[in-house]
């Protein structure tokens, strides 16, 4: 089955439980984590998670709403974007 990859990008103050909460939200909707990359950049926690939504029944819009709660609770900035945008902008 063709994958439907999205990039979940998280920026904010480093704190306990960021990855745990996001993984949990993603798991709940049958979204598979394909890859994960995290770094401390300029004192900020930066993470990009690549997730496959092809087995999930929800839309990117629904996922964003779900993550918005974590965004508020933990004072983070979370962005969800379909893989195609990175392909268009960074690959010729």
């Amino acid at each position, binding site marked *: 089955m063709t994958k439907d990859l999205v*990039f979940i*990008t998280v*920026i904010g103050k480093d704190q306990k439980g960021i990855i745990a909460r996001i993984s949990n939200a993603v798991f709940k909707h049958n979204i598979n984590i394909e*890859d994960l*990359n995290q*770094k401390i*950049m300029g004192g900020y926690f*930066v993470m*990009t998670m*690549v997730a496959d939504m092809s087995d999930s029944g929800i*839309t*990117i*819009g629904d996922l*964003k709403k779900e993550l918005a709660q974590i965004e508020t609770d933990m004072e983070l*900035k979370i*962005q*969800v*974007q*379909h893989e*195609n*945008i*990175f392909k*268009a*902008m*960074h690959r010729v």
Partner: protein
Amino acid sequence: MEYSLEEVMETVRMTMYHNFDIRTVTLGINLKDCINSDLGIFKSKVYDRVTGYGKKLVLEAGKLEDKYGIPIINKRISVTPVSLITESCADNAPLELAMTLDKAARDAGIDFIGGYGALVQKGMTRADERLINSLPDVLSLTERVCAFLNVGSTISGMNMDAVIKLGIIIKDIAGRTDNGLGCTKFAVFSNAPEDNPFMAGAFHGIGEPDFSLNIGISGPGVVRSVVEKNTKCDLTGLSEVIKRTAFKITRAGELIGRELATNLNVPFGIVDISLASTTKVGDSVAGIVELMGIERMGAPGSTAALALLIDAVKKGGAMASGNVGGLSGTFIPVSEDSGMNRAVREGALSIEKLEAFTAVCSVGLDMIAIPGDTPAETISAIIADELSIGVVNGKTTGVRLIPVPGKKAGDYVNFGGLLGETYIMGISSFSSRDFILRGGRMPSPITSMRN
């Protein structure tokens, strides 16, 4: 991971911090097949088509905003020039149709609908004159209808009889609306493109198919951030980094435009790569020029800086998309760009310098507030000056002037929201009356004889 963290973060930062957005998705709709001798049936066909496709456009654009995390600021519609489709109708048809378009746009959730206009570069038909005369009524009685007039072209020259009328009409529109606001919805052009997605001048040209989805990307904030980061490189190097950025944002625009067209089941038209300012401080084209090393927009060197900026954007954009079209220059609307506005307030920028900028960009004199008592012939003369640059140089130029009733040079005016705020620009008090009132047609330039 197939993409490095830096690549992912570059895209994320553009949207999160540098106001990268799709400025407009504009669906061009042909209305020629709605023409009916019964005005009631005609209006109802137009209403159904515009609301049907308008609602679908808003819905599908919203889905893509979610999918790609890039805001699509405006969802708009342009239609076949209204003078054409009302030719065979009664005299009240243009205004009646404008009211229908206004209502259809409102009901579909579309903020502006363009195409209320005519192409009169060589001469006016009776229907064209009727439409021009209706502009003060239409622009004061409707909320979302945008009007345009093409009065010059490189092939035909410039219709000076229409230009005479325009001075009078623009003053009339201004007098009937608060702060002359009606004039913000009216653009006058030479060489108007038929696929321009930007308001107020968008219309669905007669060479277009039944539908065409055109997209206007934006990104002054993104370009500004790369200029800000590259303080030490020379101008060749600066051009290179701007070009790369323009390439990336155009690719994003093309992706979203094509997907939206597919989802709407309409042909994809063009990507307009113009840098389009907004009233946000970080989203100013003047701000980019100032970061390049010009103390204030309008100072000597501004034209050269603008030339470099636009050239780099075009080169990057042209490599990224095979469908670059529309205006694809750079907009420097005075009231809508906070940096332009500051330059006017501080006396750094005059209308003559803005006219000079036209040599290196397009659109020309955009969103400029002038004294309310400016004579009609002077307004016509400013239009003639600006458009003759387009006619002779084979490019699109446009004018959107607002003679603000009761205001004089240096006064402040606020148009509200995206239309911004500005100070009234001083205009030469010397008369152009006798030249303008000669009328007739300015012949097409010798450079037009290329066959």
